[in-house]
């Protein structure tokens, strides 16, 4: 491992484990840019309405993720903006670093799941 890799590793470790809200938002933004409310809806849909973020949680997390460089704000102009209906809204997308962090979190959870299986804590399907 090079020194740079170690630095990167450290940088990643600082973010893990991700707070559930942050991971949810990363997942929601995984397939393309969205505005805040679309993220809320996406999360609610995917969890069958079990996770409902309030505007405060959503934008508090977004502010933090912007500061940490996990996501970025994008300015839509012209035709694309018109297509997206509401140009006044701020749109967010995952950064490259955000993807790395999300992947690391997913790997962490997957390893955890594996451990749980080995321990016989996960019911087998069927």
């Amino acid at each position, binding site marked *: 491992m090079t020194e740079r890799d170690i630095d990167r590793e450290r940088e990643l470790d600082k973010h893990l484990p991700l707070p559930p809200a942050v991971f949810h938002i990363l997942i929601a933004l995984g397939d393309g840019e969205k505005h*805040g*409310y679309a993220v809320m*809806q996406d999360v609610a849909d995917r969890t069958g309405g079990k996770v409902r973020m*309030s*505007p*405060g*949680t*959503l934008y508090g997390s*977004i502010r933090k993720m912007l500061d940490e460089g996990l996501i970025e704000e994008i300015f839509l102009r012209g035709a694309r903006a018109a297509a997206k209906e509401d140009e006044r809204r701020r749109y967010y997308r995952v950064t490259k670093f955000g993807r790395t962090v999300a992947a690391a979190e997913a790997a962490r959870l997957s390893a955890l799941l594996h451990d749980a299986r080995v321990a016989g804590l996960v019911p087998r399907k069927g």
Partner: protein
Amino acid sequence: MRLPERLFRLVLRLYPHEFRERFGSDMVAAYREARADAAMCGRRGSFEFWTGVMADALVRAPGEHMRMFLRDLRYAARALRRSPMYTLVAIATLALGIGANTAIFSVVHAVALQSLPFADSARLVRVWEKNDKLRIPQFSASVPNYVSWRDRAQSFEQLGAWRSGSATLTTGGEPQRVSRLEATANLLPLFGIRPIAGRLFTPEEDRLGAAHVALIVESVWRNRLGGSTDILGTPILLDGIPYNVVGIVRDRDFVLPIHCLTPLAANLAVESRSNHMMTVVGRLRPGVTIPQAQKEMDAIALQLGQEYPKDDADWGVTMASVYDWLVPRPVRTGLYLLLGSVALVLLIACTNIANLTLARAALRRREQAVRLALGASRIRVVREVLTESVLLASAGGAVGLALAYSIMPVFRTQLATVLPRAGDIALSGPVLAFALLASLATGLLFGALPAFLNSSRDVLDALKADGRSGARQGIARRLLVVGQLALATILLAAAALLGQSFLRLQRVELGFRPGNITTAMIGLPSSRYRDHAAGWQFYSRIISELSGTAGVEAVGVTSGAPFAGGNTGQPVRAQGANALGNESLQADWRMVSPGYFNAMGIPILRGRSFTEEDRRGGPGVVILSADAARRFWPNEDPIGRSIVTGEPLRVVGVVGDVRNLNQALDPRPTMYYAATQFLWPSMTLVVRTTADVPVAPMVRRIVSAADPQLAVFNVRTMETLLETSTAQPRLTAWLVGLFAVLALLLAAIGVYGVLAYLVTQRTREIGVRLALGARPGSVLRLVVGHSFRLSAIGVALGAAAALLLGPAIESQLYGVRPRDAATLATVSAALLAVALLAAYLPARRATRVDPLVALRVE
């Protein structure tokens, strides 16, 4: 707008301004859609939605605020690290300013603000007798009058009393003179004082003929009597009489240092109504006010006057809260004066730092203008500047607090003789709170102006200014200098007035020669010195042996030396034709030996001093002070006339007037009785020596040879007594003087700073002038004239304020009026001179501007 949305917008306000700016409208949009979704789930959905929103705001909003604050703090710390000189100067100035304020406040709090250490102390009152006709505003009470008050008054839950005296304790070591209170049994319970071992007095023990019992204080118990509770129930010897110790009490429960208490056990058969010795203190019933109690006591005093016209006619009653008695108003005024002065110094320091900050801000204005232009909010910029100044002030406050804390032990010991309760000076909660508030207020104060000016929307102007400050900044800085000079003028005027009155006090005509005099007290126990003859025999032996010692010039004995504290007085009439007729004169009295006047250096103006021939049993004689003699016989020779106090006394001499109580009080009419005829239970030896001869060991040796059981106490030189007497005015004058010098220095630095800056600003203009042939002299006049205008306005404002505020310190002044024109004129002139001096360096630099270099500045 619908009500719920309004509510949501209200909740949004909990978040920091910036957060709202950034996400507010998105959040409202998200809210609208989320609410619509929630509404579909019915009431329960709405309820859950709203609880979510509220809980979220309550948890997240403070976090967002904290995050912003921490970021501003980091930003400020980084900015300050970039200018270490500015930071250092600001922190040092603030540390001194806040430290001095905290230190003085700790004194004010301990002495004047904290409540008395007694339970429910607001209901405690001190009760005096008074006599308007004899112009005695407050006087101790007689035992029979106290008893009558106690039996008749309804306003008090308890009315207790004590008389203070001293006794020689011979148990547990060398004979030691101890102070003793003879107290009524209800006195300590009245104050809420409890014993730490044993018990207090019972009412039975406070009756005539009861067995002798005593309470002792903890320090005597531990240091002299072994500190074991075995002492309870065993006797100690006071003046040779055994007293059973029944209890031990804490030293600090008593405001004055005392060693032991015995019951008063008054003998009403012998106590006279005209013998005023008792200190009376009462606890008012709940709900009874001092004026109500006063009204009742007035009526009782009137009754007593009718029942005992000989002793009680014209005697009334007056009272004040125990707090007002223990912490007198002039002491409080003096302290508030100190606090005010030191606050002014801090204010001036603030203006200096504000000035410094403005100069620094001018350099950063461009940077901030760029940020404003790029859309940073104005609040954000203001907050950053304020965070920086509060951070500076907090650092200064922390260092200041440490400084104040380190000086507190010095205050505790040095101020103990000057101020009541000085021993309580400590870093208490209120003192900490004061330091914190002072730091915060200071930070906001010197940060506000630069913050306001720097966040101006006039971005374009700022960008053009290119590091030079705008016109508004220039005006602001000049205004600061004017304010600074005004404040310094006020402080300097106060210091000049206090200094003058202190000098006047020092130079006051005392009526005796204080150099090379030592005083020492001796008390003769009545159990072994039963009559006057035994007492006088003892004193004349001591006097003659001391007089024969090398280095001793003269020796006298008095019942009370000047400035030793305490006073004795009584009304007196003259016999035969005199200016006052049958009216009484309230005069002080002392019992003195034949050599007293010689030893003190008090001149004998007419007649003679006492001699050994003025024996007890022979004709009674008296010597009057010049003032007393003049009041009775303004134009005649008083020698051979008689005055009446109890028995008639023939006037044999007239001596010079003496200030007995303190320097500020004019000499009072005084009578001197012959110690050869009357003696007081404790007398003071007055020994005048040729030079610095150690008097204390000499007196101890001679007294111990005459009576090994006697203690010599309160050995002090007259110089010490005089110094102690002026300790408070000296302290006030010195401290206010110190603060004034600081103020002057800070103001001079302020003037210098502004002018130096002005010269830098106008370098180009000055260069052009010089290039066009202006003479250096005219440039000098330009700069100095500018300084003069600023300082003249400041000084004039300050002088006007000093005139307004003057009367507030009248009680602290002696021999000088609070609106003394000469003082004010001198102070103003001095300040103007300092301001001009401070302008000199920048002015000289202006004359040396090289036109070529100056024009190249652009």
